[in-house]
Every structure is written in structure tokens, then in C-alpha cells.
């Protein structure tokens, strides 16, 4: 074992030796330093490995051979080993990354770099508070020198700001140290801490001064303008160091001196962290400069960890682990992001679209962003999860709210950025430079991130083991991304099929999950079939699709809240990447993601509060929530409702589904929306029908469902965009489903299931076919289509059958849903909601007619004369689904009876009785099979009769029609399809005025304006920043001690 002291010896030795090298051998110096850093990394890593293995104990190193407190001692335990390894390796990679710049700028900056890394090592290891001060000063000074590496004039401004503020902080620290010394007579941190527990504790003011100076070093919001300037002025390679190493060190130091200051400050630490977390992220939303944005984000993350440290009394011995999960995510992600930023080399996040030239970097960029927000499988996900559960257990709801709100605000700008990179046009000019030595460190950080996510999962409390195989499969698909679409499509379908077979036994005997498994994976296979009609390579498509399906499948196999939520987030991420692929999808995918994340956080909040009264986090235990049950249920329900796009939370759906690629729309509409339904079902089942805490919730949800349906259908009727029309229709259908399940009666649930299955079947067909037609005709606007029935008869029939199902017209299965619905409504007594639903149901005819008429009937447009039927690969899955519809329509009993039996245990109320093929309730009866027979027979007879009568009918062109006076010359002018419900709109169109869209628009504008207003405090003036810091100190003094 090489002693940790050699880290310092090597670093200083090399730094001092560099002076001897002279100017002749610039790159030799670089290699020298690189070797030194490698050695330092090796030393710390070897300690880390040994400590993790448990083969050795942590040690204390006494300098000068005397025991503390009489001399300075360093400590190398697990914490120190981890952090020094992180810092040294980051230094190593940074130097690799900065290679060229460093070599050019000469040995001085190499010395500074070396001393910088060394100083952080010492600050972490030292157990002497004055020594800490000295090396903190070294770190500060070295950093202020490293800022200059970039060679810009602004760097000097940032440097002096940094020096001045840290000068104030270190001065206060010195006062604190000497005061502490005067009281306890030692400078040893352990000594002071143990004295604090005894009689001779240090004065509160000493603790305050020590603490506040470390806090100032952490750049707390809003006294952090100088810190952000440092981020934005320095070279991104240095930014990576500041964010990854310096911030990490700062946090550990805060943790280290907390016992010196005393426990009474913990609350203030939490408060400071919370303010920073929210405030910094909020300010970040208005930022468009990548480095500065990363700075805001870093400070936000530091705020989060500060909060965690402050929550020690609640988190107990898990504090460090939890802080570590966040720190490691932040470390790797931020370093990677800064490095990429250095490669992109632009002052606007909009230019990051250049990354598309480097798919691997783009993927890593996405991973970094998601890791920062806290998506699985990254460590921050585990961390946030456990923190929230712990907070929930201790009833710290306000902190839960703060963490979720801050994370959400962070997502606002990070996701925006990600979207820009994926979607915006590539910049005309760019100074990007993707040299390999610059890329390698980023790859390594990506590996670290994924590796740590995998490694840390088992250590997380309240967590279940995760099945990583689907994620690996997604990775595999990414690896073979260069193959043509047909091969990847086959592999993906095979994978889904295999996974389906794998999961089937697992859900055996659980009909609920079986149904959804068929919908998720079966539906997935069917919609993927349509992919064979696509040309090219579709880069990234298949791995993301697999990601989404993996998430969906994970929902089904989830046993506890953790793996459920894990899968939920995986699914969200995958679907986001699928949705954003559409040509004009950027804003819509963005709002989809924000609503999804918001919803996910509500769910998380609900789970966390639920954890307060549960033993463990089993999903089925939700029914036993005793603390704030109504809140728990409401939060979780609203969370799921963001996915089902219920009223108020629906504004993302039309764009997201409407603009998605033609085969993505059916995936996200027919399949993905069902995830929300599945979630709601799980929730409802665990709540139980008779739960006294949820009756109001169901009542409200019922109304929301009914109004959603009405609004969805009405909006659909006024749409001119074919896919958006379908999207609004989805909103409405999900409204029905929500309504049906909210009734919490046996028949209501049967209706809900019928609707769910129907929606899956017909919406997949419609989106597949309409999507393909839209691509084929090159327009979304229905009034630019027309007369396709002769060109695309198979499509027409499929669409016709689908709309008959949507309309609920007997004899097809849609009517089964309607019939069950009214029986349920009457039984439940929700008459007005029922009437509203019925009204909505009729309005559905408006858009159904519009859809089929505008696209298939009427006159053919001139430029569409030579159209052919859409690809067979789209028709095949559609017709398979039609077979499903027909079977369901003819034999409803065979589907409904098992479902009925499955849900029987949940309800005490009356059930559906079958008499042969006839379904009976106390209210009425319905015989699907007979209706099929009667209608079929009568229809055939009548058709035969008409054929006999008009056997000689002459076929004429459509344009061969009778006119009274003026005769239009061109057929397309006679296709009336634009705004055909003008009169209707005039009468009640005000009902669908986009109040909710306007509301969300204004909310987001408000947030951005507010952020823009806040960041005005960052006026750039050194004086102002100093005033902020002093103000901050005084205010916290008054709050924490002034009141004492």
C-alpha cells in the first residue's frame, strides 16, 4: 500500500520540478504531470479498492510523527478514498482533455493545475481545521489561476470576483477558527467536535462563522453571481473540474465541519440548500449560454446535496450514501457536459445540434441530462428515491415538495436543451472540434455514470432489484445502429416476442397484467410491423423503442413502488425520444416531457408520503396508507393522469401524437397511454372501492373524465389536421376510461376495460393508417386530401370499421362499452356526468365523419390522382387488429366474463349476469351476438334486394354530378371539407377556447419572466456581488443567531 501522503508528495514534487524543465520541453511537462496524476489516481484508487473489499481499515496519518491534536493529521477512510479517487481521476481526464491548450500555455499553468488537484486531496483528507483553511486558500488561488487558461479578457473579471469573495469567506473562516481555538484549545476537527458535545463547546458565533464561510464557498443562491461568472468565463475543461471536483470537495468540507459548528445549524443548512436548489435552477431556466447554464445547474445540484447534508437527523447514517448518489451523478454528468461544451464551443445552447454529427456523444449528452434530472438507471434516481422515502417516513412533506419542485425546474431547461440538440437545425458556422482525446474522457464519464447506476442499485434502501436485460438489449440495438431498418426491425420484433414469451408465465393467472401485456408487447410487435415500410436506417429509433417497451413491460412485472417507478421513468424517457423524432415535434415533445416529469414527481411525492405509514414500499400496500391518505391517492392519481392526458394536463398530447412519426403515433397513442390507465388501475385496486378517504377523489375524477371527453371530442371536431384530430380523440377516449374506472363499480370497470381494449384496437389502426396516408400524401391537412376510397380501399374499410367502434354503433364492440357505460352510470347515480358523456359521444360523430369523409370520400385532389394503396406492412397489423375487433364484437362474453371474474373481488356491488350470450344487469340487457346475427342477416337481405333492383347501375366518375347553375371546372374545388362545422363552432365553439393552453402558456411565461427578473441581480458588478455575500451572511446571522 502506498501511503496517501505520497499523493501530496508526488503532486508537489512534480509541481516544483516543472520549474526546472524550462521552456524547451512543454509537452514533456504535460506528460510528466499526466503521469503524476495517474500515480495519484492509482494511490487513491488502491485505497478505495482495499477499503471496499474490507481488507484494510481506514488509517490516520500523523504528520511530523505526533498524534493529533498536537500535529496535523490526515485521514484516509472510505469517504476520503472515494472522493480523492474521484478528484484525481477527474484531474487526470481533464488534463487529457485539455492537452493541447495546456501544452501551449506552458509549464506555469501545469504547476497550477497540479497544485489545484493536490489541494483538493488535502482538504478532503486533513483533519485539522487551520490546515483546511490553508489548502482551501490554495485551491481558491489555483482556481483563480486556472480560470485564465481560456485566455479571454472576461476571465480576469471572473478571477478577481472569485478572489474577492473567497477572500471575505476565508477571512470569516479565520475568525471562526481562532474563536473556536480560544474556547477548546485545539484545531483538530474531531477534537472540536467532541468538545462540542461536552462542557467547553465553541461559541455559537464561531460555529456560525466557520459554517457560513464554507457555505459561501459553495456559492449559495442568491449570493453566487461571482460563482456563476467563474463557470461562464472559464474554459469548459476547467468548468468540469470546478463542477465535478471543486464542488464535490466543497460539499464534503461542509459535511466535515458540520460537527464543528454544531447540530443546531442543520436546519439552516437544509434551508440554504433548498433555497439554492430552487433558486439557482429557476434562474437557469432563462439562460441560453451553455457554460453559464451548466453553472446554474451545478449550483442547483450543490444546493440539493447541501439539503441532504442538512437533513442528517432524518436521513441518519444514510446521509453520506445518499449525498454520494447525487454527487456521483453530478460529477460524471457535469464533467461530461462541460467537456462536450468545450468541444461544441459555442455560446448558445441552440448550436448544440452540431452534436448530431457524433451520435455517441449525443447519446451520452442525453444520458448526462437525464442523470442530472434523476432518471433511471442513473445513481441520482436511486438517491432521490430513497431520500424522498425517508422524508416521507419522517413526515417532512415540505422538503419533499422542495426537492421535487427543484428537480422539476431543473428539468425545464435541461430538457429544452436536449431537445435543441436533437432537433434544431445544425448551425451554419461552428468552431466545434471533436478531437479524439477530447471525446475519450466523455466516454469514460458515460461509462462511470451507467456503471455507478448499476453498482449502486443494490445499496439503495426501499429499492427492488432491476431487470437490466431489456436495457442491455436497447444498448445492443444502439450498437448495431448502422444496419438497415429491416434487419433492426426484425431483431426488435424478435426481441419483443421473446420478451413476451418470457413474461407470459410471470403474469400467468393475473388477467389484469395479461391484458396489458398483450396490449403493450403484442401491440408493440404489431405497430413495429409497420416499420418495414420505412426506408433508411432510422438512427436511434429501435433502441429508444425498446427502452419504452422495456419500461412498459417493467410496469407489469413491478412488485414494489421502486421498480414500478423505475420502469415508469424508463418508459417516459424512451417515449420522449420516440416522440421527438417527428419533423415538427420539438415543442410538443418538450411539453410532453415536462408534463411527464411533473406527473412522475407527483407520483413520487405520493409514494413518499405513502411510505410514511407503510412498512416497505410494496405496491399492494398502498391501501393501508393511514397518513394523509387522500393526499397520497390524489397525488398519485394526478400523476398518472398526466400520462392519460386528462383535462388540464392534456395540452401536450395533440402535438406530441399529431407530429410524431407515422408508426410512432400508434405506439404512443394506442399503447403508451395505457400505461397511465394501468397505473390508475393499480392505484384504484389498492385503494379499494370502499376506502373512506377516496370517495371525493373518485367523484372529482369522474367529472374530470366526463369533461375531458366532451372537450376532447369537441376539439377534435374542429381540427383540420388529421393526426391531431386523432390525438384529440385519444384525449376524449381516455376521458371515458378515466370516468369509467372512477365509478368504482363492477359494471363501470367492465365498461372501462371494454373501452381500454377498444381504444387500443381502433386507435392503433387509425394512427397506423392515417399516419401512413399523411406521409404518402405529404400533408396533415384533411382539406388537402379527399377521394382516397378508390385508391386505398383497404385503408378505407379499416378506418370505417374503426370509426364504427369509436362511435359505439351496434353491432361492433364499441356498443358494448356504451351499453355497459349507461348501466354503470345509472347504477352509480352519476346522471349529469352520464348526460355529458353521452353528449360527447354524439359529438364524436362530427369528427369521425369529418375524418373519413375528408380523407376518403369526396373529390380526389389533382396531385393525388396517381396515389396507390399504402404499404402492406401498415395494412397487415391493421387487419390483424380488425380481426381482434370482430372477435370482440361477436363474442363479447368470452372477453368480458374473465375480466368480470377478475374484478369481482374488488367490488361488493351487483354484477353482470350472463344468460347464454345475453348480458343482463338490473337495468337492462344486451345480446351482442344476437345483434350481430340480426343486423348481419337484415343487412345482407337488404343489400341483396338493392342489388336486384339496381343491377344495371352505371358506374360514373365522382365529378359527374348534377348542378343547378354554375358548374365548377375542377373537381378539387368541390371538395367541401375545410371548417365544415363552422356553424357549430359559432354556436358552442367557445367551450373549447384554449383556456388551458393559455393557462399553461402564461404559467411558463411567468416562470421565465420571473427567472429573467431574478437573474437581474447578477448585474456583473463585483461590488454588488460582495454586497450580496455580506447581505447573505448578515441575514443568516440574524436568522440563526440574532434570534437566540
Amino acid at each position: 500500500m502506498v501511503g496517501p501522503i505520497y499523493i501530496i508528495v508526488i503532486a508537489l514534487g512534480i509541481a516544483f520540478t516543472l520549474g526546472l524543465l524550462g521552456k524547451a520541453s512543454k509537452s514533456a511537462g504535460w506528460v510528466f504531470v499526466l503521469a503524476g496524476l495517474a500515480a495519484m489516481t492509482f494511490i487513491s484508487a488502491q485505497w478505495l479498492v482495499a477499503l471496499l473489499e474490507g481488507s484494510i481499515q481506514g488509517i490516520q496519518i500523523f504528520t511530523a510523527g505526533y498524534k493529533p491534536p498536537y500535529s496535523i493529521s490526515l485521514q484516509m477512510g472510505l469517504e476520503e478514498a472515494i472522493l480523492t479517487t474521484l478528484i484525481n481521476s477527474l484531474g487526470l481526464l481533464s488534463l487529457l482533455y485539455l492537452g493541447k491548450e495546456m501544452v501551449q500555455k506552458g509549464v506555469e499553468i501545469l504547476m497550477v493545475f497540479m497544485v489545484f488537484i493536490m489541494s483538493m486531496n488535502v482538504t478532503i483528507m486533513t483533519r485539522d481545521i487551520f490546515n483546511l483553511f490553508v489548502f482551501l486558500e490554495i485551491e481558491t488561488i489555483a482556481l483563480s489561476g486556472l480560470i485564465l487558461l481560456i485566455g479571454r479578457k472576461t476571465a480576469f473579471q471572473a478571477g478577481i470576483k472569485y478572489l474577492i469573495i473567497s477572500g471575505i469567506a476565508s477571512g470569516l473562516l479565520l475568525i471562526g477558527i481562532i474563536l473556536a481555538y480560544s474556547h477548546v484549545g485545539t484545531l483538530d476537527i474531531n477534537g472540536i467536535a467532541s468538545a462540542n458535545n461536552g462542557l467547553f463547546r465553541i461559541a455559537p458565533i464561531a460555529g456560525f462563522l466557520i459554517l457560513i464561510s464554507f457555505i459561501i464557498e459553495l456559492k449559495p443562491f442568491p449570493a453566487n453571481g461571482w460563482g456563476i461568472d467563474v463557470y461562464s468565463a472559464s474554459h469548459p475543461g476547467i468548468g468540469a473540474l470546478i463542477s465535478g471536483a471543486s464542488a464535490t470537495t466543497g460539499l464534503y468540507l461542509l459535511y466535515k465541519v458540520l460537527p464543528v459548528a454544531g447540530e443546531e445549524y442543520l436546519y439552516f443548512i437544509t434551508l440554504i440548500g433548498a433555497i439554492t436548489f430552487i433558486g439557482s435552477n429557476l434562474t437557469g431556466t432563462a439562460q441560453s449560454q451553455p457554460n453559464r447554464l451548466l453553472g446554474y445547474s451545478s449550483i442547483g445540484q450543490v444546493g440539493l446535496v447541501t439539503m441532504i447534508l442538512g437533513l442528517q437527523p432524518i436521513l441518519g447514517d444514510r446521509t453520506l450514501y445518499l449525498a454520494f448518489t447525487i454527487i456521483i451523478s453530478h460529477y460524471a454528468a457535469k464533467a461530461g457536459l462541460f467537456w462536450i461544451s468545450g468541444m461544441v464551443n459555442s455560446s448558445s445552447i441552440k448550436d448544440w445540434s452540431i452534436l448530431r454529427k457524433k451520435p455517441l456523444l449525443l447519446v451520452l449528452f442525453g444520458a448526462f441530462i437525464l442523470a442530472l434530472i434523476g432518471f433511471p438507471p442513473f445513481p441520482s434516481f436511486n438517491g432521490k428515491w430513497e431520500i424522498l422515502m425517508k422524508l416521507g417516513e419522517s413526515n417532512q412533506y415540505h422538503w419533499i415538495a422542495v426537492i421535487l419542485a427543484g428537480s422539476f425546474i431543473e428539468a425545464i431547461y435541461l430538457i429544452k436543451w436536449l431537445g435543441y440538440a436533437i432537433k434544431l437545425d445544425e448551425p451554419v458556422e461552428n468552431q466545434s472540434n471533436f478531437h479524439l482525446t477530447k471525446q475519450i474522457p466523455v466516454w469514460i464519464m458515460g461509462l462511470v455514470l451507467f456503471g455507478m447506476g448499476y453498482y449502486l442499485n443494490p445499496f439503495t434502501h426501499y429499492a427492488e432489484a432491476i431487470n437490466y436485460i431489456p436495457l442491455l438489449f436497447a444498448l445492443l440495438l444502439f450498437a448495431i445502429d448502422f444496419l438497415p431498418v429491416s434487419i433492426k426491425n426484425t431483431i426488435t420484433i424478435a426481441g419483443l416476442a421473446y420478451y413476451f414469451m418470457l413474461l407470459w408465465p410471470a403474469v400467468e393467472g393475473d388477467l389484469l397484467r395479461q391484458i396489458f401485456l398483450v396490449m403493450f408487447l403484442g401491440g408493440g410487435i404489431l405497430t413495429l410491423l409497420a416499420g418495414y415500410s420505412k426506408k433508411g436506417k432510422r438512427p436511434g429509433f429501435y433502441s429508444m423503442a425498446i427502452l419504452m417497451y422495456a419500461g412498459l413491460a417493467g410496469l407489469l412485472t413491478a412488485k414494489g413502488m421502486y421498480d414500478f417507478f423505475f420502469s415508469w421513468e424508463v418508459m417516459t424517457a424512451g417515449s420522449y425520444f420516440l416522440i421527438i423524432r417527428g419533423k415538427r415535434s420539438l415543442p410538443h415533445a418538450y411539453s410532453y416531457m415536462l408534463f411527464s416529469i411533473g406527473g412522475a414527481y407527483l407520483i413520487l411525492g405520493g409514494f413518499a408520503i405513502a411510505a410514511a405509514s407503510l412498512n416497505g414500499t410494496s405496491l399492494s400496500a398502498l391501501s393501508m396508507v393511514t397518513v394523509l391518505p387522500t393526499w397520497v391517492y390524489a397525488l398519485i392519481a394526478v400523476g398518472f393522469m398526466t400520462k392519460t392526458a386528462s383535462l388540464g394536463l392534456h395540452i401536450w398530447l395533440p402535438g406530441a401524437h399529431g407530429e410524431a412519426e407515422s408508426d410512432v403515433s400508434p405506439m404512443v397513442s394506442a399503447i403508451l397511454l395505457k400505461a397511465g390507465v394501468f397505473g390508475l388501475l393499480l392505484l384504484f385496486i389498492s385503494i379499494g372501492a370502499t376506502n373512506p378517504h377516496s370517495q371525493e377523489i373518485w367523484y372529482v375524477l369522474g367529472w374530470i373524465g366526463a369533461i375531458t371527453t366532451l372537450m376532447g371530442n369537441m376539439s377534435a371536431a374542429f381540427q383540420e389536421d388529421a393526426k391531431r384530430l386523432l390525438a384529440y380523440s385519444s384525449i376524449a377516449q381516455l376521458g371515458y376510461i378515466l370516468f369509467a374506472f372512477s365509478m368504482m363499480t363492477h359494471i363501470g370497470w367492465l365498461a372501462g376495460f371494454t373501452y381500454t381494449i377498444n381504444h387500443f384496437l381502433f386507435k392503433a389502426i387509425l394512427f397506423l393508417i392515417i399516419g401512413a396516408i399523411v406521409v404518402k400524401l405529404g400533408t396533415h391537412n384533411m382539406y388537402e386530401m379527399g377521394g382516397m376510397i378508390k385508391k386505398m380501399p383497404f385503408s378505407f374499410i379499416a378506418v370505417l370499421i374503426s370509426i364504427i367502434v369509436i362511435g359505439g354503433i351496434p353491432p361492433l364492440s364499441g356498443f358494448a362499452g356504451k351499453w355497459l357505460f349507461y348501466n354503470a352510470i345509472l347504477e352509480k347515480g352519476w346522471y349529469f356526468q352520464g348526460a355529458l358523456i353521452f353528449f360527447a359521444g354524439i359529438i364524436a360523430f362530427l369528427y369521425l365523419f369529418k375524418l373519413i369523409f375528408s380523407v376518403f370520400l369526396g373529390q380526389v385532389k389533382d396531385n393525388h390522382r396517381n396515389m396507390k394503396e399504402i404499404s402492406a406492412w401498415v395494412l397487415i397489423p391493421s387487419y390483424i387488429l380488425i380481426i381482434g375487433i370482430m372477435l370482440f364484437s361477436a363474442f363479447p362474453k368470452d372477453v368480458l366474463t374473465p375480466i368480470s371474474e377478475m374484478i369481482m373481488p374488488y367490488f361488493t356491488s351487483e354484477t353482470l349476469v350472463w344468460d347464454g350470450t345475453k348480458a343482463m344487469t338490473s337495468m337492462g340487457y344486451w345480446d351482442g351476438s344476437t345483434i350481430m346475427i340480426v343486423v348481419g342477416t337484415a343487412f345482407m337481405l337488404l343489400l341483396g334486394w338493392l342489388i336486384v333492383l339496381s343491377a344495371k347501375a352505371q358506374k360514373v366518375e365522382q365529378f359527374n354530378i348534377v348542378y343547378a347553375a354554375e358548374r365548377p371546372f375542377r373537381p378539387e374545388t368541390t371538395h367541401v371539407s375545410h371548417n365544415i362545422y363552422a356553424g357549430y363552432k359559432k354556436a358552442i365553439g367557445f367551450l373549447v377556447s384554449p383556456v388551458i393552453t393559455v393557462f399553461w402558456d402564461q404559467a411558463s411565461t411567468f416562470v421565465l419572466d420571473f427567472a429573467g427578473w431574478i437573474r437581474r441581480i447578477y448585474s456583473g458588478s463585483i461590488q454588488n456581488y460582495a454586497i450580496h455575500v455580506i447581505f447573505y451572511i448578515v441575514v443568516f446571522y440574524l436568522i440563526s443567531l440574532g434570534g437566540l
Partner: protein
Amino acid sequence: MDYSISKFLFTLLGLFIVLNWGMLMSSTMRRINARVSGRIGIPWYQPWIDLVKLYSMRSQLSHGTMFYLGPVFRLMGGVGLFLFMPMIYGSQYFMNYSFSGDLILILYFQFFGMLGMALGAGEGGHPYSAIGISRGLSQFTTIEVPMTLAVISLAIQYHTFSISDIVAAQQGSILNWTVFTNPLATIAAMLSLLGAFGHSPFNLVRAPNEIPLGPPTEYHGSFLGVLRTNGAILHVTEAALFMNLFFGGATSWIELIIKTFFIYFWSVFVGTVFPRFRIEQSVVWFLKWPTIIGIFSIILFM
């Protein structure tokens, strides 16, 4: 569940009666209408003449498959409604095939014909068809609101969706009729009936003046014959529905004929008195008074 031949034949007989009564009723109404406006009007047998003429026309044009199927769908709608409607209370044979579904089936089966017709007319490619259909659908959505409210009110009142059961509950005395036990629902439904029958003031959909062409012209010969046939059946069947729901049903064909006559007459009567609404006017009108009445009819029974 009776699928026997005799059942089928009786049903055909019922259909025949309904068809003829429907034609007679329509000619009678047109005569009344003419008298009110000072004309003589058509002879009572004019519908039969028309029908025979239409079915025997030789020139027949089709614009395509859906155009061809449109009338079939439409007629299926009318016939289906008849098939699922119990016509004569207490008669085993004229209950038709109402055992396959209840009131909800009837309500939704109306759409079957409408949709088919709309699609058929749509394929005709005539711009006025689209206009007519869009107006018709717009108006129809609101017509159904008071009707639904009334039906829900009835369902609460009788606690059943079965038409036969509703009729049964109204037997005994004239005071048991829904019109007396639930007058609000009846009013709402009868107002909705005005729209359903499409007479003035709610006849913009097939307004004779603005749309002289479109479906009636595009569809001619046997196609139009089928449509006319359906019209006769549909009118009687719908009137029979209202009769069953609100006026005690019918125990014999005579009773049915009298009751349906008055129900049908009610819409004609209103039509001769009021001028035509524009589509946005009728939409708003239906959502106003009839809806409010309908809501009150539910509140009274909650």
C-alpha cells in the same frame, strides 16, 4: 330468443304495416300542410306512386361502392330500429327482436343509418352533400341532449332500460303514462323529437331552398326508392319509440296508429308555425330550454 320462421314472417308483416302506415301518414301530413298554406296538396296515394316509379326507373348511376352501400346502411338503420323495437305491447310476435337489446341499443342504432347515409352521400362527391351532412350532424348532436336527459330521467324513474318494462309500467290507467308521471322528461323529449323528425324550424339540413340538389338528386331511381322506404319506416318507428316511452305504448295496431299519428302530427304542427332556424340558432336553442327542462326532469327523480 326466438329465431323461428314464424317469428320472422310476423316481423315482416309488422314491417309491411309500418311501411304502409308511414307512407299514408306522410301524405296525410303533406296534405295538412298544404291546406294550412292554402294549397290542395298531393293525393293520399302519392307516396306509393312515387315508390313504384322510383323502383322501376332504368337510369341508375353509382359513384362508387360506398355510394352504393349508403342507402343500404340507411335502410338497415330504419329496419334495424324496427327490429329492435317492441311495437305492440303484450304481443309475442310484434315484440320483434327486441330481446337483443334495450333502449340504449335503440338510441345507438339510430346512428347506424345516419353514418351510412352520410358516407354514401359523401362519396357522391357533391359539395352540398358535405354541407348538408355537416349541418345535420351538428344539429343532431344537440337534439340528442334533451333526449338523453329524458331517457336518463326515465331510467331513474323506472329503474330499467328495457322498453317493454317501461311500457308495462305505464299500463293500467292513462294516469300511469309517463307524460303524466314525468311531464318534464316528456316535454324535453318531445322538443327533441322536433329536431329528430327534421321538420321546420329544424329542417335546414335538407332545406329545400338552399340545397335543391345534393343527395336527393344524386340518389335517384331505386337508390332514392330505398331511401323513401326507409323514411316511411323510420318515422313510424321513431314515433313508436316515443309512444312506448311516454304515452303508454300500444296494445294493438289501432292504438299504435292513433298514437303515432298524433306524435308525428305534433312535429308537423310546430313546423308549420315556426320559421326555419339557422344551424347555430338551432344548436343553441336545443342546448337551452329543452336541456334545462331535461336537467330538471332528472333532478326531480334523483
